[in-house]
Protein backbone atom coordinates (compact mmCIF):
# COMPACT_ATOMS: atom_id res chain seq x y z
CA UNK A 1 0.00 0.00 0.00
CA UNK A 2 2.35 2.71 -1.18
CA UNK A 3 0.11 5.69 -0.77
CA UNK A 4 -0.27 5.26 2.94
CA UNK A 5 -2.72 7.43 4.78
CA UNK A 6 -5.02 9.75 3.01
CA UNK A 7 -5.74 12.88 4.92
CA UNK A 8 -8.05 15.74 4.27
CA UNK A 9 -5.47 18.44 4.67
CA UNK A 10 -6.22 19.54 1.17
CA UNK A 11 -9.12 21.94 1.19
CA UNK A 12 -10.40 20.78 -2.16
CA UNK A 13 -10.54 17.18 -1.04
CA UNK A 14 -12.34 18.23 2.08
CA UNK A 15 -14.92 20.13 0.09
CA UNK A 16 -15.33 17.16 -2.21
CA UNK A 17 -15.93 14.95 0.79
CA UNK A 18 -18.56 17.36 2.09
CA UNK A 19 -20.23 17.40 -1.27
CA UNK A 20 -20.32 13.62 -1.25
CA UNK A 21 -22.11 13.63 2.03
CA UNK A 22 -24.75 16.00 0.80
CA UNK A 23 -25.18 13.89 -2.31
CA UNK A 24 -25.37 10.58 -0.53
CA UNK A 25 -28.79 9.86 -1.98
CA UNK A 26 -27.37 10.11 -5.45
CA UNK A 27 -25.22 7.03 -4.97
CA UNK A 28 -26.29 3.63 -5.87
CA UNK A 29 -24.86 1.89 -2.87
CA UNK A 30 -21.45 1.63 -1.25
CA UNK A 31 -19.71 0.22 -4.32
CA UNK A 32 -20.83 3.21 -6.35
CA UNK A 33 -19.56 5.52 -3.64
CA UNK A 34 -16.26 3.68 -3.44
CA UNK A 35 -15.86 4.00 -7.17
CA UNK A 36 -16.42 7.71 -6.95
CA UNK A 37 -13.95 8.01 -4.09
CA UNK A 38 -11.38 6.03 -6.02
CA UNK A 39 -11.56 8.63 -8.78
CA UNK A 40 -9.98 11.13 -6.42
CA UNK A 41 -6.84 9.02 -6.46
CA UNK A 42 -6.63 9.75 -10.16
CA UNK A 43 -4.84 6.51 -10.91
CA UNK A 44 -5.52 3.37 -12.88
CA UNK A 45 -8.01 1.34 -10.90
CA UNK A 46 -5.59 -1.56 -11.00
CA UNK A 47 -3.03 0.46 -9.11
CA UNK A 48 -5.49 1.88 -6.65
CA UNK A 49 -4.65 2.00 -2.98
CA UNK A 50 -7.41 0.07 -1.37
CA UNK A 51 -6.10 1.07 2.06
CA UNK A 52 -6.41 4.74 1.16
CA UNK A 53 -9.85 4.07 -0.30
CA UNK A 54 -10.91 2.37 2.92
CA UNK A 55 -9.70 5.36 4.88
CA UNK A 56 -11.66 7.70 2.64
CA UNK A 57 -14.79 5.67 2.96
CA UNK A 58 -14.51 5.35 6.72
CA UNK A 59 -13.98 9.06 7.15
CA UNK A 60 -16.98 9.66 4.87
CA UNK A 61 -19.13 7.49 7.07
CA UNK A 62 -17.72 9.23 10.15
CA UNK A 63 -18.61 12.63 8.76
CA UNK A 64 -22.06 11.48 7.80
CA UNK A 65 -22.54 10.42 11.40
CA UNK A 66 -21.40 13.75 12.81
CA UNK A 67 -23.76 15.49 10.39
CA UNK A 68 -26.49 13.13 11.62
CA UNK A 69 -27.18 11.85 8.13
CA UNK A 70 -28.98 8.56 8.13
CA UNK A 71 -26.96 6.04 6.19
CA UNK A 72 -28.52 2.97 4.72
CA UNK A 73 -27.53 -0.29 6.38
CA UNK A 74 -25.41 -1.48 3.49
CA UNK A 75 -23.20 1.61 3.79
CA UNK A 76 -22.55 0.65 7.40
CA UNK A 77 -21.94 -2.98 6.52
CA UNK A 78 -19.39 -1.84 3.98
CA UNK A 79 -17.80 0.44 6.56
CA UNK A 80 -17.44 -2.46 8.99
CA UNK A 81 -15.98 -4.64 6.32
CA UNK A 82 -13.52 -1.95 5.21
CA UNK A 83 -12.45 -1.43 8.83
CA UNK A 84 -11.77 -5.15 9.02
CA UNK A 85 -9.91 -5.01 5.72
CA UNK A 86 -7.88 -2.07 6.92
CA UNK A 87 -6.77 -3.92 10.05
CA UNK A 88 -5.83 -6.93 7.93
CA UNK A 89 -3.79 -4.78 5.62
CA UNK A 90 -1.99 -2.99 8.44
CA UNK A 91 -1.27 -5.90 10.78
CA UNK A 92 1.26 -8.57 9.92
CA UNK A 93 -0.49 -11.73 8.74
CA UNK A 94 -1.44 -14.17 11.46
CA UNK A 95 -0.16 -17.62 10.39
CA UNK A 96 -2.92 -19.36 12.37
CA UNK A 97 -5.64 -17.50 10.46
CA UNK A 98 -7.05 -19.60 7.64
CA UNK A 99 -9.14 -16.90 5.98
CA UNK A 100 -8.09 -14.95 2.93
CA UNK A 101 -5.29 -12.48 3.36
CA UNK A 102 -5.83 -8.74 3.39
CA UNK A 103 -4.14 -8.50 0.01
CA UNK A 104 -6.55 -11.01 -1.50
CA UNK A 105 -9.53 -9.14 -0.13
CA UNK A 106 -8.13 -5.83 -1.31
CA UNK A 107 -7.45 -7.26 -4.76
CA UNK A 108 -11.01 -8.46 -5.01
CA UNK A 109 -12.40 -5.08 -4.06
CA UNK A 110 -10.16 -3.48 -6.65
CA UNK A 111 -11.43 -6.00 -9.19
CA UNK A 112 -15.04 -5.23 -8.34
CA UNK A 113 -14.44 -1.53 -8.74
CA UNK A 114 -12.63 -1.99 -12.01
CA UNK A 115 -15.38 -4.23 -13.29
CA UNK A 116 -18.10 -1.78 -12.32
CA UNK A 117 -16.17 1.07 -13.93
CA UNK A 118 -15.73 -0.99 -17.09
CA UNK A 119 -19.43 -1.76 -17.25
CA UNK A 120 -20.26 1.91 -16.85
CA UNK A 121 -17.95 2.84 -19.67
CA UNK A 122 -19.48 0.19 -21.90
CA UNK A 123 -22.97 1.27 -20.99
CA UNK A 124 -22.11 4.80 -22.02
CA UNK A 125 -20.56 3.55 -25.27
CA UNK A 126 -23.60 1.47 -25.94
CA UNK A 127 -25.97 4.37 -25.52
CA UNK A 128 -23.73 6.52 -27.70
CA UNK A 129 -24.10 4.09 -30.59
CA UNK A 130 -26.36 4.83 -33.49
CA UNK A 131 -29.78 3.80 -32.36
CA UNK A 132 -32.77 2.62 -34.27
CA UNK A 133 -35.44 5.27 -34.44
CA UNK A 134 -32.93 7.98 -33.61
CA UNK A 135 -30.01 7.64 -36.01
CA UNK A 136 -31.16 5.01 -38.43
CA UNK A 137 -34.63 4.06 -39.43
CA UNK A 138 -36.72 1.15 -40.47
CA UNK A 139 -39.02 1.02 -43.43
CA UNK A 140 -41.73 3.56 -42.80
CA UNK A 141 -44.39 1.91 -44.87
CA UNK A 142 -43.90 -1.76 -44.36
CA UNK A 143 -45.78 -3.85 -46.83
CA UNK A 144 -47.18 -6.35 -44.49
CA UNK A 145 -46.95 -9.87 -45.56
CA UNK A 146 -50.46 -10.80 -46.42
CA UNK A 147 -51.36 -14.10 -44.97
CA UNK A 148 -53.03 -16.33 -47.44
CA UNK A 149 -54.89 -18.89 -45.49
CA UNK A 150 -55.28 -22.11 -47.30
CA UNK A 151 -57.32 -24.88 -45.85
CA UNK A 152 -56.15 -28.34 -46.54
CA UNK A 153 -58.79 -30.94 -46.04
CA UNK A 154 -57.79 -34.34 -44.93
CA UNK A 155 -59.53 -37.61 -44.55
CA UNK A 156 -58.03 -40.93 -43.76
CA UNK A 157 -58.84 -44.25 -45.29
CA UNK A 158 -60.51 -45.09 -42.02
CA UNK A 159 -62.76 -42.03 -42.33
CA UNK A 160 -63.68 -43.18 -45.77
CA UNK A 161 -64.48 -46.72 -44.72
CA UNK A 162 -66.39 -45.60 -41.68
CA UNK A 163 -68.37 -43.25 -43.89
CA UNK A 164 -69.19 -46.01 -46.28
CA UNK A 165 -70.01 -48.42 -43.49
CA UNK A 166 -72.31 -45.80 -42.04
CA UNK A 167 -74.28 -45.54 -45.25
CA UNK A 168 -74.39 -49.28 -45.66
CA UNK A 169 -75.53 -49.83 -42.11
CA UNK A 170 -78.19 -47.25 -42.59
CA UNK A 171 -79.53 -49.34 -45.48
CA UNK A 172 -80.58 -52.04 -43.08
CA UNK A 173 -83.18 -49.87 -41.56
CA UNK A 174 -84.83 -49.47 -44.92
CA UNK A 175 -88.02 -51.52 -45.17
CA UNK A 176 -86.86 -54.86 -46.46
CA UNK A 177 -88.15 -55.74 -49.86
CA UNK A 178 -87.14 -59.05 -51.27
CA UNK A 179 -85.61 -58.75 -54.62
CA UNK A 180 -87.65 -61.46 -56.31
CA UNK A 181 -86.02 -61.42 -59.67
CA UNK A 182 -83.72 -64.32 -58.93
CA UNK A 183 -85.79 -66.23 -56.45
CA UNK A 184 -88.10 -69.12 -57.24
CA UNK A 185 -90.26 -69.67 -54.19
CA UNK A 186 -91.50 -72.95 -52.73
CA UNK A 187 -95.07 -71.94 -53.50
CA UNK A 188 -94.20 -71.28 -57.12
CA UNK A 189 -92.40 -74.64 -57.38
CA UNK A 190 -95.25 -76.55 -55.75
CA UNK A 191 -97.77 -74.97 -58.05
CA UNK A 192 -95.67 -75.75 -61.06
CA UNK A 193 -94.87 -79.37 -60.03
CA UNK A 194 -98.47 -80.16 -59.23
CA UNK A 195 -99.31 -79.34 -62.81
CA UNK A 196 -96.46 -81.35 -64.27
CA UNK A 197 -96.44 -84.36 -61.94
CA UNK A 198 -99.16 -86.17 -63.76
CA UNK A 199 -96.83 -86.73 -66.67
CA UNK A 200 -94.12 -88.36 -64.52
CA UNK A 201 -94.89 -91.99 -64.88
CA UNK A 202 -91.21 -92.90 -65.15
CA UNK A 203 -88.38 -91.95 -62.80
CA UNK A 204 -87.34 -88.50 -63.95
CA UNK A 205 -84.48 -86.25 -62.86
CA UNK A 206 -85.83 -83.53 -60.60
CA UNK A 207 -83.69 -80.98 -62.37
CA UNK A 208 -85.49 -81.53 -65.63
CA UNK A 209 -88.49 -79.88 -63.98
CA UNK A 210 -86.63 -76.55 -63.67
CA UNK A 211 -88.48 -73.91 -65.64
CA UNK A 212 -87.03 -72.39 -68.73
CA UNK A 213 -84.59 -69.56 -68.01
CA UNK A 214 -83.68 -70.95 -64.62
CA UNK A 215 -81.25 -73.67 -65.65
CA UNK A 216 -78.15 -71.76 -66.65
CA UNK A 217 -77.80 -68.71 -64.39
CA UNK A 218 -76.15 -70.07 -61.22
CA UNK A 219 -78.11 -67.91 -58.81
CA UNK A 220 -81.42 -68.64 -60.46
CA UNK A 221 -80.57 -72.31 -60.75
CA UNK A 222 -79.70 -72.56 -57.08
CA UNK A 223 -82.94 -70.91 -56.08
CA UNK A 224 -85.09 -72.99 -58.43
CA UNK A 225 -83.36 -76.24 -57.48
CA UNK A 226 -83.91 -75.61 -53.80
CA UNK A 227 -87.56 -74.70 -54.21
CA UNK A 228 -88.28 -77.63 -56.51
CA UNK A 229 -86.58 -80.04 -54.11
CA UNK A 230 -88.60 -78.69 -51.22
CA UNK A 231 -91.78 -78.86 -53.27
CA UNK A 232 -91.07 -82.47 -54.23
CA UNK A 233 -90.63 -83.38 -50.57
CA UNK A 234 -93.96 -81.75 -49.93
CA UNK A 235 -95.52 -83.84 -52.68
CA UNK A 236 -93.91 -87.01 -51.27
CA UNK A 237 -95.46 -86.16 -47.94
CA UNK A 238 -98.91 -85.91 -49.48
CA UNK A 239 -98.26 -89.21 -51.26
CA UNK A 240 -98.45 -87.75 -54.75
CA UNK A 241 -94.95 -88.81 -55.77
CA UNK A 242 -92.05 -90.99 -54.73
CA UNK A 243 -88.49 -89.78 -54.59
CA UNK A 244 -85.12 -91.53 -54.74
CA UNK A 245 -81.42 -90.91 -54.94
CA UNK A 246 -79.13 -93.81 -55.83
CA UNK A 247 -75.99 -92.39 -54.33
CA UNK A 248 -74.57 -89.30 -52.62
CA UNK A 249 -74.68 -86.38 -55.08
CA UNK A 250 -76.37 -88.63 -57.63
CA UNK A 251 -79.32 -87.12 -59.47
CA UNK A 252 -82.53 -87.00 -57.48
CA UNK A 253 -85.37 -88.71 -59.30
CA UNK A 254 -89.08 -88.51 -58.82
CA UNK A 255 -92.00 -90.54 -60.15
CA UNK A 256 -95.72 -90.02 -59.81
CA UNK A 257 -97.51 -92.52 -57.63
CA UNK A 258 -99.92 -94.47 -59.74
CA UNK A 259 -103.40 -93.78 -58.49
CA UNK A 260 -105.27 -96.79 -57.48
Amino acid sequence: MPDGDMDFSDVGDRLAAEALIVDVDGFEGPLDLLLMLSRTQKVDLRKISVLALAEQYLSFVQRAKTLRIELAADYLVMAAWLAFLKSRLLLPPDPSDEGPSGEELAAHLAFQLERLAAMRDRAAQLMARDQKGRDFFVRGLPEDVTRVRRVRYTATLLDLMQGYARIRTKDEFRPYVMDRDNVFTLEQALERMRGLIGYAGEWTDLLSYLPEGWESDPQRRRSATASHFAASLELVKTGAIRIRQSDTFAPIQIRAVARA
Partner: protein
Amino acid sequence: MPETGPEAADDRPPRESLFEAPPEAEQERMVEAILFATVEPIGVADLNTRLPHGCDAAATVERLRKRYEGRGVSVVKVGDAWAMRTAPDLGFLMQKETVETRKLSRAAVETLAIIAYHQPVTRAEIEEIRGVSVSRGTVDQLLELEWIRFGRRKMTPGRPVTYVVTQEFLDHFGLESARDLPGLKELRAAGLLENRPPPGDALQGDDGEDDQDQTDMFEDEA
Protein backbone atom coordinates in the same frame (compact mmCIF):
# COMPACT_ATOMS: atom_id res chain seq x y z
CA MET B 1 -20.26 0.51 -37.08
CA PRO B 2 -19.74 3.32 -34.67
CA GLU B 3 -17.38 5.06 -37.08
CA THR B 4 -20.18 5.98 -39.42
CA GLY B 5 -22.26 7.54 -36.70
CA PRO B 6 -23.40 11.12 -36.57
CA GLU B 7 -19.80 12.08 -35.84
CA ALA B 8 -18.82 10.86 -39.28
CA ALA B 9 -21.36 13.16 -40.81
CA ASP B 10 -19.96 15.99 -38.80
CA ASP B 11 -16.56 15.21 -40.23
CA ARG B 12 -17.43 16.65 -43.56
CA PRO B 13 -18.62 20.12 -42.85
CA PRO B 14 -16.82 21.70 -45.85
CA ARG B 15 -19.27 20.01 -48.18
CA GLU B 16 -22.25 20.91 -46.09
CA SER B 17 -22.01 24.61 -46.02
CA LEU B 18 -25.22 26.53 -45.68
CA PHE B 19 -25.19 27.80 -49.23
CA GLU B 20 -23.71 24.95 -51.17
CA ALA B 21 -25.86 21.99 -52.07
CA PRO B 22 -24.51 18.50 -51.33
CA PRO B 23 -23.23 16.65 -54.41
CA GLU B 24 -25.81 14.86 -56.52
CA ALA B 25 -24.87 11.42 -55.21
CA GLU B 26 -25.33 12.64 -51.68
CA GLN B 27 -28.70 14.17 -52.50
CA GLU B 28 -29.70 10.85 -53.97
CA ARG B 29 -28.74 9.03 -50.78
CA MET B 30 -30.78 11.49 -48.78
CA VAL B 31 -33.90 11.16 -50.88
CA GLU B 32 -33.46 7.40 -50.87
CA ALA B 33 -33.33 7.32 -47.08
CA ILE B 34 -36.31 9.63 -46.71
CA LEU B 35 -38.46 7.71 -49.16
CA PHE B 36 -37.53 4.49 -47.40
CA ALA B 37 -38.34 5.69 -43.92
CA THR B 38 -41.30 7.92 -44.53
CA VAL B 39 -44.67 6.69 -43.45
CA GLU B 40 -46.57 8.13 -46.36
CA PRO B 41 -45.75 9.28 -49.86
CA ILE B 42 -43.94 12.57 -49.79
CA GLY B 43 -44.22 15.47 -52.21
CA VAL B 44 -41.32 17.27 -53.86
CA ALA B 45 -41.95 20.40 -51.81
CA ASP B 46 -41.82 18.42 -48.57
CA LEU B 47 -38.66 16.71 -49.72
CA ASN B 48 -37.06 20.07 -50.41
CA THR B 49 -37.87 21.37 -46.96
CA ARG B 50 -36.27 18.30 -45.40
CA LEU B 51 -33.20 18.29 -47.60
CA PRO B 52 -30.31 20.64 -46.96
CA HIS B 53 -30.47 24.02 -48.62
CA GLY B 54 -29.86 24.00 -52.36
CA CYS B 55 -30.94 20.46 -53.05
CA ASP B 56 -33.11 19.72 -56.05
CA ALA B 57 -35.61 17.11 -54.91
CA ALA B 58 -37.46 16.91 -58.24
CA ALA B 59 -34.36 16.07 -60.24
CA THR B 60 -33.00 13.77 -57.54
CA VAL B 61 -36.16 11.74 -57.24
CA GLU B 62 -36.19 11.29 -61.01
CA ARG B 63 -32.61 10.02 -60.95
CA LEU B 64 -33.50 7.72 -58.12
CA ARG B 65 -36.47 6.43 -60.01
CA LYS B 66 -34.18 5.56 -62.93
CA ARG B 67 -31.69 3.90 -60.63
CA TYR B 68 -34.33 1.59 -59.26
CA GLU B 69 -35.79 0.65 -62.62
CA GLY B 70 -35.92 -3.11 -62.93
CA ARG B 71 -34.95 -3.62 -59.31
CA GLY B 72 -36.99 -5.39 -56.67
CA VAL B 73 -38.09 -2.02 -55.37
CA SER B 74 -39.30 0.93 -57.39
CA VAL B 75 -39.79 4.65 -56.90
CA VAL B 76 -43.36 5.39 -57.79
CA LYS B 77 -45.45 8.51 -58.06
CA VAL B 78 -48.57 8.47 -55.94
CA GLY B 79 -50.65 11.46 -56.94
CA ASP B 80 -48.25 14.36 -56.54
CA ALA B 81 -46.09 12.54 -54.07
CA TRP B 82 -43.36 9.93 -54.24
CA ALA B 83 -42.95 6.64 -52.50
CA MET B 84 -40.93 3.48 -52.75
CA ARG B 85 -42.76 0.23 -53.27
CA THR B 86 -41.80 -3.31 -53.98
CA ALA B 87 -41.97 -4.22 -57.65
CA PRO B 88 -45.50 -5.29 -58.56
CA ASP B 89 -44.35 -8.53 -60.17
CA LEU B 90 -42.89 -9.66 -56.85
CA GLY B 91 -46.13 -9.35 -54.97
CA PHE B 92 -46.27 -13.10 -54.62
CA LEU B 93 -43.29 -12.91 -52.25
CA MET B 94 -45.30 -10.79 -49.87
CA GLN B 95 -47.76 -13.51 -49.23
CA LYS B 96 -47.25 -16.03 -46.59
CA GLU B 97 -49.28 -19.10 -46.93
CA THR B 98 -50.62 -20.60 -43.82
CA VAL B 99 -51.99 -24.01 -44.39
CA GLU B 100 -54.74 -25.05 -42.10
CA THR B 101 -55.64 -28.66 -41.89
CA ARG B 102 -59.28 -29.43 -41.48
CA LYS B 103 -61.23 -32.63 -41.41
CA LEU B 104 -63.39 -33.33 -44.39
CA SER B 105 -67.07 -32.98 -43.57
CA ARG B 106 -69.16 -36.05 -43.04
CA ALA B 107 -71.19 -35.39 -46.17
CA ALA B 108 -68.01 -35.09 -48.21
CA VAL B 109 -66.52 -38.26 -46.74
CA GLU B 110 -69.66 -40.23 -47.48
CA THR B 111 -69.98 -38.89 -50.99
CA LEU B 112 -66.33 -39.65 -51.62
CA ALA B 113 -66.74 -43.15 -50.25
CA ILE B 114 -69.70 -43.83 -52.51
CA ILE B 115 -67.83 -42.57 -55.54
CA ALA B 116 -64.84 -44.71 -54.60
CA TYR B 117 -66.89 -47.87 -54.10
CA HIS B 118 -69.35 -47.42 -56.92
CA GLN B 119 -67.52 -45.52 -59.61
CA PRO B 120 -68.45 -44.49 -62.20
CA VAL B 121 -71.47 -43.13 -60.43
CA THR B 122 -73.94 -40.36 -61.21
CA ARG B 123 -75.13 -37.77 -58.77
CA ALA B 124 -78.60 -39.36 -58.76
CA GLU B 125 -77.04 -42.67 -57.79
CA ILE B 126 -75.04 -41.09 -54.98
CA GLU B 127 -78.21 -39.52 -53.68
CA GLU B 128 -80.01 -42.81 -53.86
CA ILE B 129 -77.31 -44.55 -51.87
CA ARG B 130 -76.89 -41.81 -49.29
CA GLY B 131 -80.61 -41.34 -49.02
CA VAL B 132 -80.15 -37.56 -49.03
CA SER B 133 -79.45 -35.07 -51.74
CA VAL B 134 -75.84 -34.22 -52.45
CA SER B 135 -75.08 -30.53 -52.27
CA ARG B 136 -73.28 -28.90 -55.13
CA GLY B 137 -70.68 -27.60 -52.64
CA THR B 138 -69.74 -31.09 -51.54
CA VAL B 139 -69.06 -32.29 -55.07
CA ASP B 140 -67.23 -29.06 -55.91
CA GLN B 141 -65.06 -29.46 -52.86
CA LEU B 142 -64.09 -32.98 -53.86
CA LEU B 143 -63.44 -31.85 -57.42
CA GLU B 144 -61.30 -29.01 -56.11
CA LEU B 145 -59.33 -31.37 -53.92
CA GLU B 146 -58.78 -33.34 -57.10
CA TRP B 147 -59.96 -36.47 -55.38
CA ILE B 148 -62.75 -36.99 -57.90
CA ARG B 149 -63.16 -36.08 -61.54
CA PHE B 150 -65.80 -36.48 -64.19
CA GLY B 151 -65.99 -39.92 -65.76
CA ARG B 152 -67.67 -40.79 -69.00
CA ARG B 153 -71.34 -40.00 -69.42
CA LYS B 154 -73.77 -42.75 -68.72
CA MET B 155 -75.57 -44.18 -71.76
CA THR B 156 -78.94 -43.63 -70.19
CA PRO B 157 -81.64 -41.04 -70.82
CA GLY B 158 -80.28 -37.60 -70.09
CA ARG B 159 -76.74 -39.01 -70.44
CA PRO B 160 -75.86 -38.00 -66.91
CA VAL B 161 -72.27 -37.25 -66.06
CA THR B 162 -70.51 -39.70 -63.76
CA TYR B 163 -67.86 -39.25 -61.12
CA VAL B 164 -64.77 -41.38 -60.58
CA VAL B 165 -61.90 -41.09 -58.14
CA THR B 166 -58.53 -39.78 -59.30
CA GLN B 167 -54.92 -40.85 -59.02
CA GLU B 168 -54.58 -38.04 -56.49
CA PHE B 169 -57.23 -39.76 -54.41
CA LEU B 170 -55.38 -43.07 -54.57
CA ASP B 171 -52.13 -41.37 -53.61
CA HIS B 172 -53.70 -39.60 -50.69
CA PHE B 173 -55.26 -42.74 -49.29
CA GLY B 174 -52.32 -44.94 -50.12
CA LEU B 175 -54.24 -47.16 -52.48
CA GLU B 176 -52.91 -48.71 -55.63
CA SER B 177 -56.33 -48.86 -57.18
CA ALA B 178 -59.92 -48.32 -56.15
CA ARG B 179 -60.19 -52.11 -56.06
CA ASP B 180 -57.91 -52.10 -53.03
CA LEU B 181 -60.69 -50.53 -51.02
CA PRO B 182 -61.76 -52.99 -48.38
CA GLY B 183 -65.05 -54.68 -49.04
CA LEU B 184 -67.96 -54.73 -46.66
CA LYS B 185 -66.85 -58.10 -45.33
CA GLU B 186 -63.52 -56.60 -44.31
CA LEU B 187 -65.20 -53.57 -42.92
CA ARG B 188 -67.29 -55.84 -40.76
CA ALA B 189 -64.26 -57.87 -39.73
CA ALA B 190 -62.60 -54.62 -38.73
CA GLY B 191 -65.59 -53.84 -36.56
CA LEU B 192 -66.69 -50.98 -38.77
CA LEU B 193 -69.95 -52.67 -39.62
CA GLU B 194 -71.67 -53.92 -36.55
CA ASN B 195 -74.78 -55.19 -38.22
CA ARG B 196 -75.43 -57.69 -40.89
CA PRO B 197 -75.74 -56.03 -44.24
CA PRO B 198 -79.06 -56.43 -45.99
CA PRO B 199 -79.48 -59.66 -47.95
CA GLY B 200 -78.70 -59.34 -51.57
CA ASP B 201 -76.15 -56.64 -50.87
CA ALA B 202 -73.94 -56.34 -53.86
CA LEU B 203 -70.80 -56.26 -51.79
CA GLN B 204 -71.54 -59.43 -49.91
CA GLY B 205 -69.55 -61.68 -52.13
CA ASP B 206 -65.81 -61.71 -52.41
CA ASP B 207 -64.00 -58.62 -53.46
CA GLY B 208 -63.12 -59.31 -57.04
CA GLU B 209 -66.69 -59.94 -57.93
CA ASP B 210 -67.87 -57.01 -55.91
CA ASP B 211 -66.38 -54.46 -58.19
CA GLN B 212 -67.92 -56.17 -61.08
CA ASP B 213 -71.24 -56.31 -59.32
CA GLN B 214 -71.04 -52.72 -58.37
CA THR B 215 -70.73 -51.64 -61.92
CA ASP B 216 -73.34 -54.09 -63.01
CA MET B 217 -75.73 -53.07 -60.35
CA PHE B 218 -75.94 -49.59 -61.64
CA GLU B 219 -75.86 -50.53 -65.23
CA ASP B 220 -78.77 -52.83 -64.59
CA GLU B 221 -80.67 -50.21 -62.79
CA ALA B 222 -80.09 -47.66 -65.42
